[in-house]
Structure formats: structure tokens, C-alpha cells
């Protein structure tokens, strides 16, 4: 039996409760033969409820053989550690395994005395020997970790509980750390920080140790003496790997602990490692590699989440609703990677504070900017360049971040010696800015702005222009440690213009826009650690101009036409409670009462009741005055989920969700195009609704660095909009005559294996998913496929994704993507006939065939500059190959009549290997 040297935990000075000795003689029974040390630990932890602290690396070569029946724990430990260099100490329910020295577990004299020792006096002598922390921060971190923080006004009250609350920030730049977990081992209480880095935790009065963990940050801890409600702000430091670091993970991983299911969080670091098209970090394309997310094709950034259509995703960029999240025909996502902090995708348990879309919420949070010094970052790629600046405005209370991206595609196109290209134009840019200001400890203000613009014209013909414009302001107020609220108000706008002046008589301009004004109030109340109550209210006022067409030029005969504007008010009131019945069993129940008012002014067609809605069944029109409510839809949405922990590393979750959607995208192309029209629900167009049941099993291995999960779901969609053959959607005053209601069902299994730490990290996922639609409108004469279920355009039963990154050294890493999915369904001709001078294809049932399977591999190499922490500018290079195998993945298959005969073609967007190189810098 070989033991190697042991290093201890970061923490040496321990908070001891007076009754700790009384519990030390729990008995254990063990039957272990050549067991690993962690098996031994697990066995004891299970039987006694005690928790071990030890260095995993030092112990992994140990093997233990022991046979005992109902022996006191101390005897067992003595026996195991006898004749080794290890020592152990028991404190409360914690067992520390150390070498070299025994931990002092007795009380510091005078601790409960009137003149308390200063926290510094408690600092153990051997702090200097702590090699685990980063060298840079070793001293301060250790000092903070070993200091005893007094929380609240000291008084003589004993017993009962008090609440500690505060912010967790990145010590380097002052930005909030989102989703950090604060965990107290003794009470098994745990909370996580919200999007502001804020947390609130209720604990019994007395001394506690708080363990603080966050992905990509050095774990830390705080000792507190909790007297009354009070504040504790914590700084964490980025995990900068040094060569001899020992990381001890005590984190109960969020994926296991949270009651949420179907939620994936990706931070920008992970996304930046993924090889991207032309090196342009693409938030949406990484999201597409998650299980349960597909898209119709390569050039599309329209997401299909668990069988939902592309318009059923709420894409929020710092609370701003972004309607068209892509640039350049959908090749690039519209978000500047330097401003993005992380991305959360909710595909199953959608928190009750979100609503208005059926399938998912993609919440993109942006960084607050460096609060400590002026900094910048940027990159130069083959097609695009970007620059971001950030810094404090005054004394650390205000910070800003402003970033922009643009493309030099226009310049490139002009230089291509091919008329088709040199007559084409393609340009885009986006700018985003964020200011965060701390008024005082209780009040914070945040300003967010986003502007994107695209303009392209292919071969001198039709030109397209579209733009997202968003601005909002948020005020966060902390009422008390247990209660805080945010109010956010803003404007979101999406508009596009199409125009052509190739033919002077028909020259036209067409415009479309959506405007929404919103106000949201969210309140978080955590009365104690058992309940986390969230409640709020939101309202959105929509104004849509569904289409305006006008003449372009003097000779144009085009008549001005404007489809009536649409107005609507979407409001919701919600309340939800996360109730921890026991630490192992948590339920989350929420209800969101959503209401939609379709409002005037508008003239609406009336149809013969019970007859198909056709232009010939229009019997009358009704005029509604401005502000008058034409129709109100109201329904409760349920958000229920529960989590049961099977062990500290495994849990099972179940959820049920229902949602409603009042704004619909009308598109008869397969991809999201800048010509899609959005439409509000009104008298004739019902809201879409859907619900989902899901069940998941989660298990972590190897100290939570390997996360596995299996989730199954079944989803129903009602009043989904489908189109009649030959529907005309543009400038149509009575769209209800061209659409039909369909219903859908989606079901599937998603399996994921994710490694979050170590040299190799990434994930591999498999998803089986089906999405089927059915035209069930009784008023439709010729339902699609005779009213049978048929596969949706994005129904791809099997998909396997591998996203991996391997670090050879701190400066050199390689990344690999391997993506496979079943080809999407298409409609193939079943016969041909001769008409109007040519053979033409006869199409039968919709989506009964599939295009060939999709397979793509991308590879990239990331080379970082040297890792001196203090340096003027950090630079890195990313070079790689997109579509390494050069496989021509068909985007679509189509049949066209050429010279009298039918020809079938496969169109692939990326028909070859696309190399790229990008230079990134940071200063």
C-alpha cells in the first residue's frame, strides 16, 4: 500500500461549534477490498453524514482494505491512517485529511467572549505554506479566506436565522459573477448568484463557512459569524492555471442541484474555443451544437428547439428582444462575442419570468465592463473586424463597455473579377453599448443599447436592408437582504426594407417594421433558504407596420399601399416559488397569467361563421377605433418542476411547462429570410399555445468535472400557423385567408456527456427527436397530406454532436467539432408531366423524403501569446478549417425545368474546405 504525500485544503482555520465532539462517535461498518480512497470516503460519508476534505490527487494511488462492523468512526480513521504520514481531524461534520500537521480544531480562546478577537488574529500561522492559490493572489485570497467576517449588528440573540446577502464580483475587473454557487456544508444550504452576481442566503445564527464556486474561477470560501441580517461582498479571481495548482472541488454542481431542467449555459470562453466559420465566433452556431437544437440549414441561424419553429424562440440580448439574430444571409450571428458574457438556453423549464414564445428562451447576457481600468479587445478576421472598449467612468462605480463589428465584404466583392460579384453588395455592422452605474449599495442602474444593420444586393437586382434597434434601462433596488427588485423599460425595433429599381416602371420600395415598448418588473424574495419566491409583471405594447410599398423614382407606376398597422398589448403577471422541502427534494411551482389585447385602430373582415375563411366568405367589415380592444386572449401558463437528489452527484428531475405566443412569423421559405413578416394575434388569428412534459436524470462523475444527463420530453403545439398552397403573405390585408391552423407534436431523448475541466473539455451529445405537424383545421378543404401527421421541415431524428478542446499547453490548444444529423425532410416529385413547353415535376405528399445526411467536421488551432499576467497587450491567433472533409452537405434539393426537361440539383452552401485565420487582441 503506497501513500503519497498529501497537501491540505486551502482552509486551515476552522469554525468549530461547541457541540462538535459529541457527534464524533458515530459508528460505521465497512467491507472494502483494495478500494480507492474515494470509495472509502463515499462509504463513510453515506453512513455518517460527515464530509471529507482531502486532496484528491494525492489520494488517488491509495488503496484501502478494511473490514469493520459498527466501529466508532474515530477508531476506523485511526486504523486506516495508522502508520501513514496522514493525519486527520474531525470538526463538526467535517473530516480533514492532512499530512505534516494536525489541524487545530479547538476553539480560539475568547471567541465567544465580549472582546472578540479580530479576524486577523485567527489567521493560522501556516498560511504562508499554502501553495494552492494563485501566486499573485495568494496572500490576499488567503487573508480573505481566513478572516472571520462579522455579518450584521452584533447582539446577544442566539438561535433563529439571519440573512447574508451581497455581490460576487470578479476581482480583476469588478464584473459580476453570474451563477456562482454559495454553499454551506454544515446546513447543506446552497444558493446561486443571479445575473447581477447577487445572492441572498439565510442561515442559522452563528459561525459558518461558505464555499464559493464558479466555472472558470478559483474557488474560494468565507468564514462568517452571522449575527443579524447583513452584507458580504466577495471577490473571486479568474482561474489562471499555474503549474502546481491543486484544485479541490466541493461544488455540488449546478446541473445536479438546480430544479431547472433542459437548461444549458455556455460562457463565452467555451464558445470562443469552438471553430467558427471564418473564425467569427458565433454564439448561435455553438448553441446549435447543443442537443435538442437544430436548424434547417447551414446558412440559417434560425434555431429549432425541441421541435419548435424559428419564431418560437425568445432571443434576449440584455433584456432586448432581437427579432433577426443574424447577419449576412444568416452566415453570422448578430452578437459581438467580446460583449457577450454568457448564454443561457432554456428549452424545457422556462422560468416564469419569461414568456411570449413557445419553444425556448435564449438569454444572452452582456458584460458590465471593466470597473477597474480601461481595457479593450478586438479581432481581425478574413471578412470581419471588431473592436470593444471598456472601463470605469468614475471611481469604480460606473463602468461602460462599447463594441462594434463590421465587414469589409463590399471591398472584397468589388475586387473579385467576376461581374456577378462585383455588382453585388454586402455589408453589415453592429454596435452595442452598456453602462452600469452603482448609485449606492442598494441601487444600481444599467443602460443597454444595440444597433445592427445589414445591407445586401445580389448582382445589381433587389436590395435588402434590415436592422435591429434596441435600447433599455434597468434599475435594480435592494429593499433588504431578502428582497430585491428590478424594473426595466425599453424599446425594441426591427425593420427591413426591400427595393428594386431594375425596371423603371415597376421600381418599388417595401418597408416593414416591428416596434415594441416594454416594462418589466421582477421581484425576488427569499424569506429563508427553503423558499425563493419570484414574482413580477410585464407588459409589451406592440406596433407593427406589416408592409408599406411605394414607388421608387418618377417613372414608377407603383401605387402606394400600406397594410393597416397592428397594435397589441401583451401583459403578464407571474409568481413562482422554489421550495426546498428537504435539501434533497426541491419543487419549483410557478404560474404566469398572460393576456393579450388586440387593439385598434383597425378595420377587420368578418367571415361567414363556420365557413372556410376565403375572400368570398367575407360578409362585412368592422371598424375599431384607436385604442379600442378588439379581442382579448387570456390564459394561465404553468411552470412546474421538481428535483430529487439521489446522492450528492446524481439527481432526477421532472417538469411540466405551458406557454403561449401572440406574435407569429409568416414565412414560406425554409430559412429565416429578411422578407419574413411578423403578425400579431387578432380576431381571426388565434395565439399559439404549447406544453411540454419532461423527465431527466443527471449524474456527475469525477468530482463534478464530468456531467452526464438524459432527458426525455413530449411536447404539444396548438394553433401553429401553416400556409395554403400559393399563399401570398406580402401586402395581404386578410392574411387569415392564406393561413391554416396546424397542430404539432414533438418528442425525443437527449443524452449528453460534458467534461467541464481538465486538459480535454467539451461535450458529446446525442439526440433523438421527432417533430410532426398536422393540419387539423376543420375549415380547411384540402389539408396538407390529407390531414395526416407529417414531419416538419426541421425534423431531424438523429443528431450527434462532438465539441471538444484539448489544451496541449497553456498557450496552445486545438478544437474539433464533429456534427452529424439526419438530413431534413423534403418533398420530392413523384411524377412528371408536360405543360407549357416543358416537363414539370408533380409533387405529392409534403416532406416524405429526406436529403442526404449532414456531416461536418471543423478544426482549429488556438495559439495564445505568452501568459505574463502584466503585459501591454495580449494577443492570440486562431487558425482552422471549416468543413475539413469538404463534404458537400446539401442545403436543399430542388427540381427545375430546364430546356424542357426536369433536372434535380443539390445545393450546398459550403462545398469545400474553408480555411480561416483570425487575430485577436486584448489590452
Amino acid at each position, binding site marked *: 500500500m503506497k501513500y503519497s504525500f498529501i497537501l491540505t485544503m486551502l482552509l486551515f482555520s476552522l469554525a468549530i461549534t461547541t457541540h462538535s465532539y459529541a457527534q464524533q462517535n458515530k459508528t460505521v461498518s465497512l467491507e472494502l477490498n483494495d478500494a480507492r480512497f474515494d470509495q472509502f470516503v463515499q462509504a463513510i460519508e453515506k453512513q455518517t453524514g460527515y464530509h471529507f476534505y482531502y486532496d484528491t490527487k494525492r489520494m488517488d494511488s491509495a488503496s484501502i482494505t478494511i473490514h469493520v462492523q459498527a466501529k466508532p468512526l474515530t477508531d476506523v480513521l485511526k486504523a486506516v491512517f495508522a502508520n501513514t504520514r496522514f493525519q486527520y481531524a474531525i470538526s463538526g461534520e467535517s473530516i480533514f485529511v492532512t499530512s505534516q500537521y494536525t489541524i487545530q480544531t479547538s476553539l480560539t480562546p475568547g471567541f465567544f467572549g465580549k472582546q472578540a478577537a479580530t479576524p486577523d488574529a485567527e489567521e493560522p500561522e501556516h498560511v504562508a505554506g499554502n501553495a494552492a492559490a494563485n501566486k499573485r493572489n495568494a496572500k490576499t485570497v488567503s487573508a480573505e479566506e481566513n478572516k472571520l467576517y462579522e455579518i450584521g449588528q452584533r447582539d446577544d440573540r442566539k438561535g433563529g436565522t439571519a440573512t447574508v446577502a451581497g455581490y460576487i464580483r470578479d476581482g480583476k475587473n469588478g464584473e459580476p459573477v453570474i451563477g456562482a454557487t454559495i454553499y454551506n456544508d454544515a446546513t447543506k444550504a446552497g444558493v446561486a448568484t443571479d445575473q447581477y452576481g447577487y445572492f441572498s442566503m439565510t442561515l442559522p445564527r452563528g459561525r459558518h463557512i461558505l464555499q464559493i464556486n464558479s466555472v472558470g474561477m478559483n474557488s474560494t470560501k468565507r468564514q462568517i459569524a452571522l449575527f443579524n441580517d447583513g452584507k458580504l461582498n466577495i471577490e473571486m479571481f479568474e482561474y489562471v492555471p499555474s503549474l502546481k495548482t491543486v484544485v479541490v472541488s466541493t461544488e455540488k454542481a449546478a446541473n445536479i442541484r438546480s430544479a431547472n431542467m433542459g437548461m444549458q449555459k455556455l460562457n463565452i470562453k467555451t464558445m470562443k474555443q469552438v471553430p467558427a466559420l*471564418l473564425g467569427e465566433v458565433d454564439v448561435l452556431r455553438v448553441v446549435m451544437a447543443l442537443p435538442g437544437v437544430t436548424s434547417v*440549414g447551414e*446558412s440559417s441561424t434560425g434555431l429549432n428547439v425541441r421541435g419548435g419553429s424559428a419564431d418560437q424562440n425568445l432571443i434576449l440580448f440584455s433584456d432586448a428582444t432581437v427579432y433577426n439574430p443574424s447577419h449576412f*444571409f444568416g452566415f453570422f450571428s448578430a452578437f459581438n462575442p467580446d460583449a457577450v458574457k454568457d448564454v443561457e438556453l432554456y428549452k424545457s423549464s422556462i422560468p416564469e419570468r419569461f414568456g411570449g414564445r413557445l419553444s425556448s428562451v435564449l438569454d444572452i447576457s452582456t458584460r458590465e465592463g471593466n470597473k477597474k481600468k480601461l481595457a479593450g479587445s478586438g479581432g481581425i478576421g*478574413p*471578412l470581419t473586424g471588431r473592436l470593444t472598449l471598456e472601463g470605469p467612468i468614475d471611481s469604480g462605480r460606473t463602468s461602460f463597455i462599447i463594441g462594434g463589428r463590421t465587414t469589409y465584404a463590399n471591398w*472584397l*466583392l468589388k*475586387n*473579385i473579377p467576376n461581374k456577378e*460579384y462585383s455588382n*453585388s453588395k454586402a455589408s453589415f455592422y453592429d454596435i452595442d453599448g452598456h453602462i452600469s452605474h452603482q448609485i449606492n449599495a442598494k441601487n444600481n442602474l444599467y443602460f443597454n443599447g444595440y444597433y445592427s444593420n445589414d445591407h445586401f444586393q445580389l448582382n445589381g437586382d433587389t436590395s435588402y436592408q434590415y436592422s435591429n434597434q434596441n435600447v433599455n434601462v434597468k434599475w435594480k433596488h435592494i429593499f433588504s437582504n431578502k428582497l430585491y427588485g428590478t424594473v426595466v423599460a425599453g424599446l425594441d425595433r426591427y425593420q427591413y426594407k426591400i427595393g428594386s429599381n431594375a*425596371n423603371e*416602371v*415597376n421600381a418599388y420600395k417595401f418597408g416593414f417594421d416591428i416596434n415594441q415598448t416594454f416594462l418589466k418588473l421582477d421581484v425576488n424574495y427569499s424569506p429563508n433558504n427553503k423558499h425563493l419566491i419570484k414574482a413580477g409583471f410585464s407588459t409589451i405594447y406592440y406596433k407593427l407596420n406589416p408592409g408599406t410599398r411605394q414607388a421608387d423614382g418618377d417613372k414608377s*407606376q*407603383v*401605387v402606394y*399601399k400600406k397594410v393597416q398597422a397592428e397594435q397589441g398589448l401583451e401583459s403578464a403577471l407571474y409568481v413562482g416559488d422554489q421550495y426546498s422541502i428537504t435539501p434533497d427534494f426541491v419543487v419549483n411551482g410557478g404560474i404566469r397569467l398572460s393576456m393579450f389585447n388586440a387593439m385598434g385602430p383597425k378595420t377587420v373582415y368578418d367571415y361567414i361563421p363556420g365557413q372556410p375563411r376565403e375572400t368570398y366568405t367575407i360578409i362585412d367589415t368592422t371598424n375599431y377605433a384607436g385604442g379600442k380592444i378588439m379581442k382579448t386572449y387570456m390564459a394561465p401558463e404553468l411552470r412546474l418542476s421538481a428535483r430529487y437528489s439521489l446522492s450528492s452527484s446524481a439527481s432526477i428531475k421532472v417538469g411540466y411547462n405551458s406557454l403561449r405566443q401572440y406574435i407569429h412569423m409568416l414565412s*414560406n*421559405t425554409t*430559412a429565416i*429570410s429578411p*422578407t419574413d413578416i411578423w403578425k400579431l394575434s387578432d380576431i381571426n388569428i388565434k395565439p399559439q399555445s404549447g406544453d411540454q412534459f419532461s423527465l431527466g436524470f443527471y449524474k456527475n462523475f469525477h468530482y463534478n468535472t464530468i456531467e452526464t444527463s438524459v432527458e426525455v420530453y413530449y411536447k404539444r403545439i396548438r394553433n401553429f400557423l401553416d400556409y395554403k*398552397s*400559393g399563399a401570398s403573405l406580402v401586402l395581404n390585408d386578410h392574411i387569415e385567408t392564406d393561413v391554416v391552423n396546424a397542430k404539432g407534436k414533438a418528442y425525443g431523448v437527449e443524452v449528453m456527456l460534458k467534461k467541464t475541466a481538465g486538459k480535454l473539455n467539451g461535450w458529446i451529445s446525442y439526440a433523438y427527436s421527432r417533430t410532426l405537424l398536422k393540419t387539423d383545421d376543420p375549415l380547411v378543404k*384540402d389539408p396538407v397530406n390529407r390531414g395526416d401527421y407529417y414531419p416538419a421541415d426541421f425534423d431531424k431524428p438523429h443528431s450527434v454532436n462532438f465539441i471538444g478542446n484539448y489544451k496541449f499547453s497553456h498557450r496552445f490548444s486545438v478544437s474539433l467539432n464533429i456534427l452529424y444529423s439526419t438530413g431534413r425532410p423534403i418533398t*420530392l*416529385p413523384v*411524377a*412528371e*408531366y*408536360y*405543360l*407549357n*413547353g*416543358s416537363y*414539370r*415535376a*408533380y409533387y*405529392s405528399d*409534403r416532406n416524405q423524403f429526406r436529403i442526404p445526411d449532414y456531416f461536418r467536421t471543423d478544426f482549429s488551432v488556438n495559439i495564445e501569446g505568452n501568459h505574463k499576467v502584466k503585459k501591454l497587450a495580449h494577443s492570440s491567433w486562431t487558425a482552422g478549417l471549416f468543413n475539413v472533409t469538404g463534404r*458537400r452537405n*446539401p442545403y*436543399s*434539393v430542388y*427540381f*427545375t*425545368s430546364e430546356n424542357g426537361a*426536369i433536372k*434535380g440539383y*443539390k*445545393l*450546398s*452552401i*459550403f*462545398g469545400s474546405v*474553408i*480555411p*480561416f485565420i483570425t487575430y485577436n487582441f486584448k489590452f
Partner: protein
Amino acid sequence: MKKILLYSLLILSAGILLNACKDVYKPQAISTPNRYLVVEGFINGTDSTFFRLSRSRNIGDTGAVKYETAAQVSIEGSNGGSFSMTNKGSGLYALGVSPFDFSSKYRLRIKTGGKEYLSEYVVLKKSPPIDSVSYSANSDGVRIYVTSHDPAGATRYYKWDYVETWEYTSLASSSFMYTTAVVPRPDPNEFYRCWRTDRSSTINLATSNGLATDIAYKAPLQYIDGTSFKVSIRYSILVNQTVLTEDAFNYWSTLKKTSESLGSIFDPQPSQLKSNIACITTPNEPVIGYVSGSTNVQKRIFINKADLPNYRPIEYALCIIDSFFFTIPGTPPIPPGRDNDTAARMKSYFQGNSNIILSDFYFGSNPKPAGYLYSSKDCMDCREKGGVTQKPAFW
């Protein structure tokens, strides 16, 4: 050097991005037993009416169109009256000029194969005259447009098809021919000059919907590449215009979108077409085609090579003019009696017009021809390119 490398990399990336790839795609064989009835034609209010009936077939089937040759076809008026059409063979059914009443509606009734088909009643629309058929030429090719308008504003939906005719020649005229031996050809221009006629194979539509006046202004009809044979000497296009109702226009524009799409990423999904003809015997049986009522107007223009930029047709670019030597140069003259060899060689070269002689040729001052210049039939006989030597009456 570094700069050039970087620059080419940039261009490459941009090029690849825009250069979507198109490959021929052959799906798995799909065969359906169904042979749907295809109805093509329109009820001509002022002239003879023709309908052609055929059947659909499996994708990839070859051979001629399967015409429906034994049908009974008639046109019925909403105010009574029925006109039965004459079977002209090859699926063509005709009706001479008939006393149609523009204020009533008509429908088509077809009885064939034990089933009966009936169209909806359609109005007879009057087509306004074609204002002009025009063209614009640049260094790449010629674009042909049609312009029509209706001052009454009753037309709105226009449909055109056209017949193109073009004059062209073979590579050269032929002075000799082979019968039992090579003899002078009585008419060296026997198959030198041809006229070829093609009918349009695309659906050409325009609507003035959304315009202040009922005008179809310069609706594009045809594009002829400058390298095409069509513009090598003289070209003519005869444009036929009919007018449609809104429903008929929707039918044809949907058909155009789904059958002539260029495969752009924003193209609509193929969808089923709603014909206005139904099978009344088996109501669910699909019928292909759309019956309209209209008058037909025509306009013809000519385009001469002289009016165009200096295009270079590539039709004969691969033709080779070869030499046939009576005596292989550099060898002694063929002794008498061995002339049969030459005759045999001539026979193998020229019999059956596989190669056609342009002319004979001479060496130096030698008055006797040294041999013939010849080229392949494909290059020498203009009829090989689909034309006829008979000049059309309108030319």
C-alpha cells in the same frame, strides 16, 4: 509577397462564401402507378380553340409524351350551348371559331378512360394588344422584353409564350457530293442555310397589380447569350399574349415558382397546385392544368446581326476542316491500276455523308486538284442543328 498571399486568402474566403455549389441530384427511383390527366390550352374567344390532353408519367421515363388520344372534349356555356371539339390526333382537340358570348362563362368537359372531368366555369377575358416587343443588347447578350397595357384597366394579369425562329448557316457550302463517286453537287447551298423554330418552354407572367396603370412594362421574356447561334444572322420572335384571371395567375405563378426556381436559399417550398379542373367520377383524383378563357394577340419582331454588338457564336468552334489527299504528299504517285485504293478511301470517307466535302484544293501551279477539304456532317449540314432549309413565309 506576404500582401499578395493575404489578399488572395481574403478573396478566396469571400468567393467561397458566395459560391454555393450545385450538384446534379438523382433521388431514389420513385414510381407511382398514377397517370394523372394533364390539360393544356385555353378557350379562345375569337379564334380557334385548341386543347391538348396528355398523361403524367414517372420521373425519368423517356420517350414521347403520352397523349390522351381517345377523349371526348366539349365546351359548355353557362347560358346553355355546348360545342364539341374535334379529335385531331396526338392528343390535340380543336374547335373552330365559335360564337362565344363574352358576357357568359364557359367550362370544359372531358370524357376519357371511363371517367369524366369538368372544369369550373371561366370568364372570357379580352386581351389588349401588345404595345411592343423590344430588346436591349450589351456585350454579353440580348434581353427581350414585352410591354402591354390596358387603358381600361381590366387586364391586370398577363401571360405570354413565344415562338423563336432564327436563320443560320452551316460551316460552309458544299461543292461536291458522293453518290457512287464524288461528283459536283448541283446546289452547293443545298443545306447551307437553315431556319430553326423553337417554342418557349418557360412560363412568362406579369401583373400590374399594385401599379397605378394597368401596364406590363418591359416584362423580361428571353435572354440570348451573345455566343448563341440564335443571333448569328437574323432572329425573330413571335409573342403570343393571353390574359388571366387572378386565380389563373396564381396557378401559373405557383407553378413557375416550383418548377423553374433557381434553387436560391430563399425559395419557397414546393406546394401542391389547385387546378380548376376536377374529376367528377373520382373526386380525389388530381388533375393537372388550368382552363382559362381569353383572346390571343400576337406580335413579331426581327433582330438582325447588324443591329447587335459583334458577338461570336461558338456553335462551330470545335469543327475541324480536314484535307483528303488523292496522293499522300511525299509519296510517289499512285501507279495506274492502284487508283481503286483512292476510290475505296473516298467511299469510306464520304459515303452516307458522314463527312461532307467543302471543295477541292490545289497544290502550287498544278492544275489538277490535290484533294478535297471536308468536315463532319454536324458542321456541314445545317439541318443537323435542328433547322429546316425551307425559308419561313414570314421571313
